[in-house]
């Protein structure tokens, strides 16, 4: 408990140091405001944007896109990862294409999706789905593939059906890997949605970011970045929170950074 308090204190001290550097650093180095606005200027701009250009609405739109894209992508990853994990034949057949799709930079699809689906929320969600899908699928697939064969034999000697083997052994065994996939996916979802919004549309933090850039408003760009980071931190935190609830049976040391 004491070491936890100490590390929390350390983190807090670092945060204060960082904010202080942001506030006074640019001035000391003689940086002009359009290159590196100081903290108070960014905060001021944030309040302005909140009041006049609907910062809250844009943030909520981005957040909804991230949550929906993450949920759909994760679901798809779980379903397809599980199916491929249970069917080595299908995986052998599909693996070159899966690999190709995994290597292809997903954000490069953004302009295409915008062309197909217009300046709506859908291309953003679609990119998030695509980018979230892979880490989740790969993790679930490999976890299902590496289930302890003795564990499966154990339930087989108990006359378990195929469905019971899946429900009692294979799926729960994959939970830890699923969550490490979800953690990665939660941060990737933010990237996917942001790129989608940068490419086209008139809603969301990505749009605000491009808009501020066009006006040479560096502080506005920082406001958008801060808000995107906040959404990302919340999304990641939510996954970690869920992981702690679901994987409560793991020794504490096994659950990494919190």
């Amino acid at each position, binding site marked *: 408990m004491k070491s936890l308090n100490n590390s929390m204190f350390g983190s807090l001290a670092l945060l204060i140091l960082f904010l202080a550097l942001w506030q006074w650093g640019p001035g000391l180095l003689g940086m002009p405001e359009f290159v590196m606005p100081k903290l108070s200027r960014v905060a001021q701009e944030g309040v302005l944007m909140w009041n006049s250009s609907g910062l809250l609405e844009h943030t909520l739109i981005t957040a909804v896109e991230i949550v929906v894209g993450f949920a759909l992508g994760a679901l798809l990853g779980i379903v397809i990862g599980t199916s491929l994990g249970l069917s080595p034949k299908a995986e052998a057949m599909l693996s070159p294409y899966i690999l190709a799709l995994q290597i292809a930079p997903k954000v490069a699809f953004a302009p295409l999706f915008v062309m197909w689906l217009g300046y709506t929320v859908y291309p953003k969600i679609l990119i998030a789905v695509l980018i979230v899908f892979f880490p989740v699928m790969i993790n679930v697939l490999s976890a299902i593939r590496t289930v302890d064969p003795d564990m499966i034999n*154990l339930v087989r000697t108990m006359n378990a059906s195929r469905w019971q083997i899946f429900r009692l052994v294979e799926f729960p065994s994959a939970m830890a890997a699923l969550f490490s996939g979800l953690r990665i996916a939660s941060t990737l979802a933010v990237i996917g949605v942001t790129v989608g919004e940068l490419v086209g549309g008139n809603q969301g933090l990505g749009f605000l970011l491009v808009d501020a850039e066009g006006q040479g408003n560096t502080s506005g760009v920082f406001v958008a970045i801060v808000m995107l980071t906040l959404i990302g931190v919340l999304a990641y935190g939510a996954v970690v929170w869920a992981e702690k609830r679901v994987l409560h049976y*793991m020794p504490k040391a096994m659950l990494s950074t919190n």
Partner: protein
Amino acid sequence: MAVTEMFAIAPHRNESQRRASEPTEIEFRHVGKCFPAKGKAEAPFAIRDVNFKIARGEVVSIIGPSGCGKSTILNMGSGLYRPSEGEVFVGGEAVNGPVKKVAFMLQKDLLMPWRSIRQNVELGLEIQGMAAAERRVIAEDLLDRCHLQGFADHYPFQLSGGMRQRAALARTLAMDPQVLFLDEPFSALDAQTKMILQQDMARMLFEEKKTALFITHDLVEAIAMSDRLLVMSARPGTIVEEIIVDLPYRENPLERRKLPEIGPLAGRLMELLKVGEDTELH
């Protein structure tokens, strides 16, 4: 003094005679198993021409050099895979798949980390579709008997190795199997925990008249717990010797370990297994 000793020995002689007249529970008839290997046209045999019978209520140990196919015998007995030749019978019926009256227990406890100890013990009953309330009664009773009172709601990572293996034993017994296949169940435990668990296991096997086929590397453990020993040769494994352990206290291995006959018997086994004669490193 002499009289009491005679009394101590006399009933067990009757016991082993009586047991020999019990019906056959496990039978291997000319069983061979080959596994395909890379770079070889014919799959080499892991075991070949294995023959033995085990009567109901008997505890028999198989010992042999490492890699002689002991675990293969066990996996065929529990129906996990079919023999390449010959036949396996459990309870008078040919084994063609997992058999309901058989349970197995390995060196690994195989407790599911996401289930509490109680849920782990209930696993087999849950698969059978037993109602939760019924399962709970059985699990509680077994946890008591395996000295795990108060740990029902713990998770496996919170238990020591010995307790985890006790939980695995409780899970095995929950199915109320007539036949137990035990593949070095104690070999991962420290020496003292091992003896205590052997004691508990031996008592339960004796009291409930279970039939058990035991695989172990520990010669004294085999002698302390069994009615008979089957000695296997190196790969392709086959049974080269049968030794009847004509000693009292099968239900009490701690006592049996103290008997003077243990030493010579273990010596004979070492000879058969060529322990120490081999210059190869294991």
